[in-house]
């Protein structure tokens, strides 16, 4: 398949490496071939939305980019660096890759502000007071500064997810991965999280977003990857994908989700 960026947001030049590059990446869960020969380049500043039916491998692809799921063969590079094996180098790389999870995964025994300052203080060795200032700015930005001293269980799902986004941003990441960030939310809370993500996209953050939110894909994405059975089946702009899907799998998928 084509590896060139087909979106409009790519700001890459010939001299800088793509932010994310996967070459012939394969991943198995036992006998199940979940990622099949994935080749992908994501230039700086591009917002890529990954769509596909459940079990298509889109979450696995997202998690493979910071090696929460190690691939079995092939290579994945982030900002020109191949993913190292588990250890200090991998931890350093992960610090530059922000990740937002479906289940938020805020640290339950720490307050929101502690969640946001933990990474900068313990990984980046930023002073506690500086980390706090930055954290409050970020919480302000995602609209939950008044919840800073509360614990995750005291917040609504939407607030927790925005706190999780602030926690990831506090590390000043080069790229942000979103693994179904709105799938565990009540419908009325989806929009507040999508708004936060859209503003992030507008600021030029490189983003890989696994989602079922077609509205977000249309509005904020530069590029849509459609996955089925572990393969990237379509790689196009949102406009092309939604109005003119090329494969039967994509037509079938869109037919099911857009008619209800």
């Amino acid at each position, binding site marked *: 398949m084509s590896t060139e960026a087909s979106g409009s947001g790519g700001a890459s030049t010939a001299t800088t490496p793509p932010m994310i590059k996967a070459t012939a990446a394969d991943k198995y869960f036992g006998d199940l071939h979940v990622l099949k020969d994935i080749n992908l380049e994501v230039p700086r500043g591009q917002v890529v939305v990954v769509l596909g039916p459940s079990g298509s491998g889109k979450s696995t692809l997202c998690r493979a980019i910071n090696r929460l799921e190690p691939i079995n063969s092939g290579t994945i590079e982030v900002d020109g660096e191949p993913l190292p094996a*588990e250890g200090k180098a991998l931890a*350093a790389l*992960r610090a530059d890759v922000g990740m937002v*999870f479906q289940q938020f995964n805020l640290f*339950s025994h720490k307050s929101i502000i502690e969640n946001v300052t933990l990474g900068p203080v313990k990984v980046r060795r930023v002073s506690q007071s500086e980390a706090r200032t930055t954290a409050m700015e970020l919480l302000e930005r995602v609209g939950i500064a008044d919840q800073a001293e509360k614990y995750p*269980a*005291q917040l609504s799902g939407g607030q927790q997810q925005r706190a*999780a986004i602030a*926690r990831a941003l506090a590390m000043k990441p080069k790229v942000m991965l979103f693994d179904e960030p709105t799938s565990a939310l009540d419908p009325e809370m989806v929009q507040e999280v999508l708004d936060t993500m859209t503003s992030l996209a507008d600021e030029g953050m490189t983003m890989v977003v696994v989602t079922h939110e077609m509205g977000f894909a249309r509005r904020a994405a530069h590029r849509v990857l459609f996955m089925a059975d572990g393969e990237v089946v379509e790689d196009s702009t949102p406009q092309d994908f939604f109005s003119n899907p090329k494969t039967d799998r994509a037509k079938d998928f869109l037919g099911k989700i857009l008619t209800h």
Partner: protein
Amino acid sequence: MFDFLTEYDILGAFWVTVQLTVYSAIGSLIWGTILAGMRVSPVPVMRAFGTAYVNIVRNIPLTLVIIAMSLGLYQTLNVALGGNTITATNFRLAILGFVLYTSTFVCESLRSGINTVPVGQAEAARALGLGFGQVLRMIVLPQAFRSVIGPLTSVLIALTKNTTVASTIGVAEASLLMSEMTENESDVIGLVFMIFAMGFVILTLPVGLLLGRVAKKAAVKR
């Protein structure tokens, strides 16, 4: 009827029991936490050591462990643990034995606590760039500890009562005094038993009640 009590230092004997319990509890908590860390570590050698240690030590009767400290460590290998007198040495050997033994139960309680922490907590911490040790220390263990305060209380109570085994190597704790008193005061043997039984209940009951409250307060809300 209680006149004979003045001839014995019951409080002193229970004070030795308390000391044995406190030192052993602290040591067991530390060594047990390290063992639990080994058992969940990604390094196969550490995992194997942790598993082998726990499965061997917790299946040896405590009396044997304590006697091995005295016969094996001290009398054969001359390890006195810095004790100047035989009393001090036996006291330290007993504590070492209790730590080696009780830590296996601390380790297993903690490990079940670690299993109650959702895997996403560790994943989120790793995704921030924290290393294995940091994830364990800052995220997983604090939550695991809070969920196993109940089981650890049972371990602590068992340890308090297990300190009676130290009498086998001559540590002058409560049960050694009890044996002496049952010999000398055979006419009030029932009373002697009652006094010592009550003594242990007085030691363990408040600890259990207090830690039960702490467990409720510390529980992590999800």
